[in-house]
């Protein structure tokens, strides 16, 4: 469905941040894109959604295909119309608009008012908390509520591929779980593909079918969620577990680091 073929991304014509990234999102699947800060995860999402241009970035090599159609030269609105919708990192709600208005902005392109109303009810069904707050100014919602709103806004666009950038960022663990349950439910009920960028590897792999691990602008490892969960390196470097599967005790931490095998 979505294919990234060896793409390179350069900012301001000089700073190359992605060095040949290839990945694939199958229809109806949840794919997790994992990695530490600065690995290039968000840049990959922006390359897909066409938002790179707003930040003076450019796909300089390789290609991105969506159902066979090449989209890496298209503008953000054309890509949005194709059904690829990104929820940005950092809970970017429209602060001075109400919850309901935020959701309406998500449905900007759609004409059918009745369907929009239905989807609004659907979002409120997924996030009952938002229904209670539908007249409140979004800027004053709590962090978790804002994250729900951002995801709800993406849902309102009836996306075929929903790209979520770190939905767990800065949220309490219980909220993170709630939000991930909802993402999973939305994925199964609407057959919407989800491309998920996450640092919280454990929670991301709990709902994903497939995962990619990024480092320094390259994909260093990929495989099914099961495979990644059991991979020694992923466990060691991203989940903080030792090879034994127990929690790492810092008493026994040695002065040298375990060598990553994929490098």
């Amino acid at each position, binding site marked *: 469905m979505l294919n990234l073929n060896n793409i390179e991304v350069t900012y301001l014509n000089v700073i190359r941040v992605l060095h040949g990234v290839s990945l694939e999102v199958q229809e109806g699947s949840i794919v997790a894109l994992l990695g530490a800060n600065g690995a290039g995860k968000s840049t990959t999402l922006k390359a897909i*959604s066409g*938002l790179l241009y*707003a930040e*003076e970035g450019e796909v300089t090599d390789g290609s991105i295909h969506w159902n066979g159609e090449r989209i890496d030269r298209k*503008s*953000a*609105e054309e*890509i*949005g*119309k194709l059904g690829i*919708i*990104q*929820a*940005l990192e950092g809970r*970017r*709600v*429209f*602060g*001075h*608009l109400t919850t309901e*208005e*935020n959701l*309406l*902005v*998500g449905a*900007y*392109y759609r004409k059918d008012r009745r369907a929009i109303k239905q989807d609004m009810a659907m979002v409120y069904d997924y996030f009952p908390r938002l229904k209670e707050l539908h007249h409140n*100014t979004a*800027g*004053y919602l*709590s*962090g978790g509520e804002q994250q729900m709103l951002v995801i709800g*806004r*993406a849902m309102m*666009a009836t996306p075929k591929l929903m790209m979520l950038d770190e939905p767990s960022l800065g949220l309490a663990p219980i909220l993170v779980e709630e939000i991930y349950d909802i993402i999973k439910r939305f994925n199964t009920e609407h057959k919407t593909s989800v491309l998920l960028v996450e640092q919280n590897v454990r929670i991301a792999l709990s709902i994903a079918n497939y995962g990619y691990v990024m480092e320094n602008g390259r994909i260093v490892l990929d495989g099914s969620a099961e495979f990644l969960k059991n991979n020694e390196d992923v466990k060691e470097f991203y989940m903080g577990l030792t090879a034994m599967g127990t929690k790492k005790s810092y008493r026994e931490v040695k002065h040298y680091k375990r060598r990553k095998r994929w490098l």
Partner: protein
Amino acid sequence: MAELLQYLITGLAVGMVYSLIGLGFVVVWKSSGVANLALGAIVLISSWFTYGMLVQAGLPLWLGFPLVILFALVLGWVIERFALRPLIAQPILSLITVTLGLAYFIEGLVNFIWPWSVDALPRLFPTEPIRIGLAVVSQEYIWVASISLVMFGLLTLFFRYHKMGIAMRATADDQLAVQACGIPVTKIFSMSWMFACVVAAVGGILISSIGGITYGLVETGLKSFSVVILGGLDSFIGAIIAGPIIGLAESLGGGYLSPYIWAGVKDIIPFIIIIIVIIIRPYGLFGEERIERI
């Protein structure tokens, strides 16, 4: 007493027109962060265009007025498309400087096409004075005030309930997030410029139908700028309320003070008020608070 009432009504009416024009400034400022210094010039050229339609071409009002609106829409579109869009993502100061250049360009164009620089529009509203209590007020002012009020109402509805209006407000909050929703921000920018030009044109017609077309219209644009500073650059309600304040200050100050001080005092009073307000509230009377959660 009668004098006072008269000053109040003219001040309110003129002030509301300032608000109307100011709203155009606010929309552009909010959606794209550009201070539109060409506002006065746009008021000027649309008034002259109205003159061209109604007097020179001799069209009736029902035909001429829609053409003026069309002209304003095209003007806004052209300005955004050819002067500002090439500069997107450039430092904001360059964009503001471009609007300053536009102001001179438009003023030059007006001088070129209508070199006699002063003329009168045909009367658009009945002129017989009406009595309100003791005061005798020219009906025109009542008309101007009512039309401005209707425009405020329509605009409020548009920004509250229309999809485009909501999207324009969203753009003011977060451009990148708007793009992430698949909304073309360039379309929003061009809408906001078209909007600014239309309200400037309507404001220009209202003012010049009373006072005639003069170079002073540029100053009217400048006054709207000060209205917006007083009300808060990013606040619609601020612009609507600050307009009448400036208008009243002008007409009351002009009416009562100029015999004692000097005739030009009328034009200075609004700015004195602004300086005082800005010292106390730097973001204007109703400037939007930054919403920050801690």
